[in-house]
């Protein structure tokens, strides 16, 4: 079992740095959405959103410093959701 001292303390500067990155990414995603990339637009939007989500998860939610168990199960959850969404297209795309 983990010892209680292993609690990770994130510095204010790190957190603030992450906030700045997140705000910057928000600006970027708005900017990108104004350029017409065709089908790529939605993928760009999702990709940038995923990056932002990653920063929130890893730092704000401390996932980076959590146990293996939490990291693995989180990936499993997202993976299941991705499979559910993906498998729908076996139907939608070929109907």
């Amino acid at each position, binding site marked *: 079992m983990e010892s209680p001292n292993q609690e990770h303390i994130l510095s204010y500067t790190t957190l603030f740095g992450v906030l700045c990155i997140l705000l910057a990414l928000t600006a970027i995603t708005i900017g990108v959405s104004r350029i017409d990339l065709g089908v790529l637009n939605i993928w760009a939007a999702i990709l940038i959103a995923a990056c932002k989500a990653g920063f929130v998860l890893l730092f704000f939610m401390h996932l980076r410093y959590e146990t293996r168990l939490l990291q693995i199960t989180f990936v499993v959850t997202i993976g*299941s959701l991705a499979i559910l969404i993906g498998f*729908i297209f076996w139907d*939608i795309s*070929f*109907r």
Partner: protein
Amino acid sequence: MTDVPSYLKTPSSPNLKGIWVWLLTTDHKRIGVLYMISILFWFCIAVTLGLVIRTELMAEGETLMGSQTYNAVFTLHGVIMIFLFIIPGIPAIFGNFLLPIQIGSDDVFFPRLNLLSWYLYIFGGILAVVSLFSGGPPDTGWTFYVPFSVQTESGVTFTVLAAFILGMSSMLTGINFITTIHRLRMKTMGWMQMPLFTWSLYATAWVQLLATPILAITLLIIVAERIFGIGLFDPGRGGDPILYQHLFWMYSHPAVYIMVLPAMGVISEIMPVFSRKAIFGYKAIVYSTLAIAIAGSLVWAHHMFTSGMSDTAVFVFSLLTFVVAIPSAVKVFSWVSTMYKGSVLMTPPLFYALCFIYLFSVGGLTGLVLGAAGTNIHVHDTHFVVGHFHFVMFGGAGFAFFAALHFWWPKIFGRMYNFRKAYRAAILITIGFIVHYMPMLILGLQGMPRRYYNYLPQFEAGNFFAGIGGFIMVAGIMLMLVNLVQGLRKGEPAVGDPWGGTTLEWSVPSPPPLHNFLDTPRVKSYPYDFTDIMKQQAGSKKV
């Protein structure tokens, strides 16, 4: 062993009095018993409704009731059986009672959350009753297919909310179990030393956790559709009713495994104990449990081969369906082989378990007919499906539930029941079962659709026999329950380990004391090691 009062005599916290000893308890064992009482209550109601259905169908034409009433009855039968009986059945009763003991803990990780889950369950049941009086009983079938479920004027909204609440209850139980297994398992118990019942609960809990929210949102959408008229599935506004079916089965197919995995866990406990021999292929069973949980979540659209879905999807989902069949087959072979060169003692729990293996095999094999695309088209939505899933759900999960009742009854209440009556009941139930559901398979092959309150004349004989079987089966169920309850008063006191089991629950007194263990339990390096039992037996003068 020192005399310590059992959990039935000790309130979980000292200031509880009277009925509050039960209603405010946080002891996982008491909560298990609370679940047992409430789940058996709903089970009896649903059995009655099922018998009403079959009685109506025994003769052609309108006999007992009209079409609208019939539709309400089968909807309620389905909703109650699925959401109030089978899904919570084994995990909520036996999981609650045994999971902490099997891993050497004194309770689940969140005892108060556990109690909350029970209250949610009760609340869901009440909502289901309320739905009867708010616009008439629901008449959509338990699948709530759109657009019908959005258009009908019956009280579907409340039924759907009831299912939503029950889903939450089951989800919270899942969270509780996973946390318990991860955090409260004894340090000395590795993953591969965990009893198979606990393993099955673990896999089930993950399915509950990840699949139930999909049901929740699907049901919320129906409520939103009915109240606000959003039109997400309304073809007139571009919606796609087939998408609803995808969402619905994304939960409801994995739900089949929520129902049947714990049942398989029960059988995996019973077979070794009464064969007095290690379970054959422990690891194979563990891996197939996980494989079923994972692959079983990816086959939902095999309920939709005739729905107008794309042929590519039919191909993919049919193929995946056959993949799921394999781990189930592996388990069946392992259970049977467990008896090979064992020392088999026939008892009521083992009898139920053997019936389980037979009936579940029929259910699984008829499932192959449904999984194959070409044959599915003919039998989909017919009585063949009704027969098939009753073989799996009732012959499988239901019989495992009965087996578990007989297996752990002495552990839970500290009293034995009458064996002779138990066998009689079991034989009645099994014979009734076969007479009841075999004709349905044949009727389905002949082309009788399901959810019909009336039928073409050529189907009368089959339906008549099915009805007869139904009555035999219900008589058996009544006898079984009466016998168990009589055991509470008249039965002989049970010792801590009446069957010669090896998992930790048999190392504590029956019924267990409040905190389960009097001293630190000793974990075996292999959970089904019977050498100690054999030594004890050699020590005493018995054969």
